[in-house]
């Protein structure tokens, strides 16, 4: 069903997209970053760790093509290539879906270790979509991470949950066990600059000051995001010129190590946008 051309010696990077709190945009961001990296001709797989409440297949538009899932692979009912679903629009983009019928205890540490190590042979980027919460599913999703993308809304409860998750990234990952550090980045989603300026939302500086990790990007609140997930496409595939897409493309470039100044797309013209852009940088 799927053919691989695993190149020897390349370094796969494992990213976990995590937040603690639910509904902040983890799955949307996983899909958008995955599609953005895949469009640069990098072999990318997005892995759904939310066993029991899977969503990534819907956002990727692959819900009717799921035959086997990560639990089948872990339990030996299917081989990894059988479970991987290649995206119809991008041949470098793959999905490893979660099971909807099992519960999260079906994921075992050994099983996850095996799956991730095998994926590392085939892919440049492995993006793990973490479930909400701080339990087993979330800790297994972050276990192999080289890089963590901490998705946060500019709102106090989301910020505090993210802070908790950052603490866990420093304690419960393989890197932490080996005395290394997971690279942590903040992805601020659903950001509405006008509402933040009115005081209805936390400002970028406030969030950065509380969490004290580097900023990967600011994704503006936009109906484009909702429209994209309703048609089953990552926003970076559905409308590449929309404001959230461009913000995700910039974030993907930063993940690759490029230095890209941070700004809110669509507001560069106004004086306010200029001031804001400078302050957020």
């Amino acid at each position, binding site marked *: 069903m799927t053919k691989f051309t695993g190149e020897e010696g390349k370094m796969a990077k494992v990213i976990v997209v995590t937040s603690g709190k639910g509904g902040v945009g983890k799955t949307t961001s996983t899909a958008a970053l995955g599609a953005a990296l895949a469009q640069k001709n990098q072999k990318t797989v997005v892995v759904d760790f939310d066993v029991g409440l899977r969503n990534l297949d819907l956002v990727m538009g692959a819900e009717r093509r799921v035959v086997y899932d990560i639990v089948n692979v872990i339990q030996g009912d299917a081989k990894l290539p059988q479970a991987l679903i290649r995206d119809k629009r991008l041949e470098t983009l793959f999905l490893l879906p979660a099971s909807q019928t099992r519960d999260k205890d079906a994921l075992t540490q050994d099983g996850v270790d095996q799956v991730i190590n095998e994926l590392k042979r085939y892919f440049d980027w492995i993006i793990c979509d973490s479930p909400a919460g*701080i339990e087993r599913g979330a800790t297994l999703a972050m276990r192999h991470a080289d890089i963590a993308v901490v998705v946060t809304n500019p709102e*106090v409860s989301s910020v*505090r*949950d993210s*802070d*908790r998750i*950052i*603490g*866990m990234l*420093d304690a419960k990952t393989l890197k932490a066990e080996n005395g290394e550090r997971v690279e942590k980045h903040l992805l601020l989603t659903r950001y509405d600059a006008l509402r933040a300026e009115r005081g209805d939302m936390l400002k970028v500086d406030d969030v950065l*000051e*509380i969490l*004290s990790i580097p900023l990967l990007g600011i994704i503006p609140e936009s109906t484009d995001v909702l429209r994209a997930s309703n048609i089953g496409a990552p926003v970076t595939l559905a409308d590449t010129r929309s404001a959230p897409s461009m913000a995700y493309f910039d974030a993907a470039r930063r993940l690759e190590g490029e230095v890209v100044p941070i700004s809110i797309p669509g507001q560069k013209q106004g004086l306010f946008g200029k001031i804001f852009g400078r302050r957020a940088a």
Partner: protein
Amino acid sequence: MTAVLTDSRSIRIKGRSFLAVVLSPDLPFDHWLARLDDLAARSAGFFLGRPVVLDVADLPISRAELQGLIEELGKRNVSIMGVEGARPSLLGPGMPPGLKGGRPASDVEVTAKEPMFETPAAAPEEGAEAEKPAVVVTVPEVRPVLQSTIIHEPVRSGQSILFPEGDVTIVGSVASGAEVIAGGSVHIYGAARGRILAGSLGNRQARIFCRKLEAEMLAIDGIYIMAEDMDPGFRGQSVQLWLEGDVIMAEILS
């Protein structure tokens, strides 16, 4: 039915450490008790008012035997505050509680009464061999070793820094939902947003220093203050806090 609390004062809970005397009896108990009587005869009031812990680790005894021993000790005015190293089956209702996690301190030495010639003798259970007619017990003063620890990164929500030994310095912030509990003072080079407890083992001299006060709760030596009871003028300021009587005082650091 709801009970109405007329007294709004909160319960004050503190930690306190005492130096307990640990008795390690050996078998048979009647021989051991005879040696204890011999010691007690030469130092009246040896155990009076002193916290005594019975160490029964590795002793092949039954609950009845332990109960008998405690009764025998009671007759000699030795009241046992706890039993260490006991299997759960050895202890029952009406018996002293089991203790765990004791840390060794220096031996309690039995010394002769002559003021100029303080001859150190053996530990109490071997004291029977000592031939001094009058014995006085001096418990060496336990000097707290001043210690401190430095945390080089932010204390995240859900994390807890526990350091009863002394001062804690944090180079970073303490997040909302995090807590720092120190035996001594707490220094925070960042924002204090969580719960900060200084002097938690009964140190009234402990202080709290922070770059930016946004704490949920502050406590010094068991006296605490919640965020909503703090003077709003100190919020967001660089502040030091200390204890005067039963009141936490604050001052903005310039």
